[in-house]
């Protein structure tokens, strides 16, 4: 169930992503182990979101291999990729505003990996009592923080082995962000790998086991947050 070369659950190997003739990601290698938290940092336009889109099967043209649980998933549909155990928490939450909280969550359940689902609706209601109270409310009427809870809940109900989080702190109050980030280690504890894309470097490095810094579509720095200096990160972040 792991990649033969690296032993990782997700292995992005020599991957390039193109939009037309424009190369947004240029020959990068990234891996995420089972139950590992990996953070991707980088400036605007470095290719972070593109990487997530490539993994989930929504990029225009991908070269190289992305192996997940031992299979190359490049060229598979998002539907198949999600069913095999990768789920995205999209940037900007992207809930369906006219659907109720419960309907939004159920969509995650419907598209998700079948089989031994250890996360059920009961877990979500327990974790987010505020959502339980608002089950029948339209998702568009929730606050930003509550919407992010639904987005996270929707992803977890898909019973993923790997969770992709795209800018989950964006536009939220610090207290809400704290609450959401407190959940990350608990998700990890269930053996779920997490790939975090985040503008807020401090926040994401604080929870990450390892990180990659992207610069103009390439990995400019990688390692364990404890092993690199802040200056190094900043230098490789801005490319100066």
């Amino acid at each position: 169930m792991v990649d033969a070369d690296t032993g990782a659950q997700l292995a992005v190997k020599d991957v390039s992503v193109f939009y037309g003739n424009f190369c947004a990601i240029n020959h990068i290698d990234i891996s995420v182990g089972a139950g590992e938290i990996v953070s991707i940092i980088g400036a605007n336009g470095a290719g972070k979101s593109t990487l997530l889109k490539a993994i989930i099967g929504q990029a225009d043209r991908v070269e190289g291999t992305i192996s997940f649980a031992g299979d190359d998933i490049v060229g598979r549909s998002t539907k198949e990729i999600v069913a095999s155990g990768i789920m995205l928490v999209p940037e900007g939450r992207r809930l369906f505003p006219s659907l109720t909280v419960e309907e939004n969550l159920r969509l995650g359940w419907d598209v998700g990996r079948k089989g031994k689902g250890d996360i059920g609706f009961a877990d979500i209601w327990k974790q987010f009592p505020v959502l339980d109270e608002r089950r029948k409310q339209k998702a568009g009427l929730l606050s930003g923080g509550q919407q992010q809870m639904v987005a996270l809940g929707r992803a977890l109900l898909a019973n993923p082995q790997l969770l992709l989080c795209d800018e989950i702190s964006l536009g939220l109050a610090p207290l809400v962000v704290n609450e959401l980030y407190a959940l990350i280690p608990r998700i990890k504890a269930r053996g779920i790998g997490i790939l975090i894309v985040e503008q807020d470097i401090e926040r994401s490095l604080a929870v990450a086991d390892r990180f990659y810094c992207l610069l103009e579509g390439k990995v400019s720095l990688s390692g364990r947050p404890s092993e690199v200096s802040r200056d190094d990160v900043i230098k490789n972040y801005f490319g100066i």
Partner: protein
Amino acid sequence: MAGVWINQILQGILLGGLYTLFATGLSLSAGVMRFVNIAHGDFIVLTSFILLVLVTSLGINPAIATIIVLPIAFVFGFGLQRFLLQRVVGENVLLVILVTFGLSIIIENGLLEGFGADPQKISGGSLETATIALGDGINMGVFQVITFVAAVAMVAVLDLILYRSGIGAKIRAVSDDVVAADLIGLSSARIYAIAMGISFVTIGIAAGFMSIWTDFDPASGGTRLLIAFEAIVLGGLGSLWGSLVGGIVLGIAQSVGAQFDIAWQMLAGHIVFLIVLAVRPQGLFPKY
């Protein structure tokens, strides 16, 4: 004298039932996919011709012929969306308008080639002539009442599918945010195709009732489309129950207009539509 007008209004309401049958499928496809299938009316007419062939060649009851046609209609609508329209959906609404426009002209002229320009009709037997007399010159045709009930039932069933079923939630999700749907693995292309399949089932049902209610000829698809379109805009785009109200408003306008002068029938419907568009462009029951 009052009886005449009450009768006209009643006939208009019943006619609104037929118009609702034209409109619900268009309301669904336009509400979900955000484009108007210009060939909607022509598909209703095409299906009516198919029913005509089934009824005359096999000698079967029109209702049975309609039921036979429905699953085929679903598969056809699914395939049409999945393999043709999906290729031009999304980036520019111009392309999908033009493709359905092309289809509309192909169907119309194909039927003209195959069946000639003469009006056709399917006989509903004794059901067609049976009436319920309410006194004071007010009469309701039994078939017209059945059609109206069918229209209400169709809206109710579609409402249930859309708001109480799993596939309904997916259809609404795709209608809300197609990009997000694809990002979480909902596969909008497949859901669009299912929505179009459902829309085509309503086309089949509409054809079943229309082919008995009125004459149809290859060129009559355009009028059907305009009526369906006016009903959904009047009712408020995306609102299924709204299209029932829109259909009834059009039916009454036409029926009362015809009472003044038979030549005013169509014009009266269009004018009511334009007036509502001028004063209340979001329709009577806006959804989006």
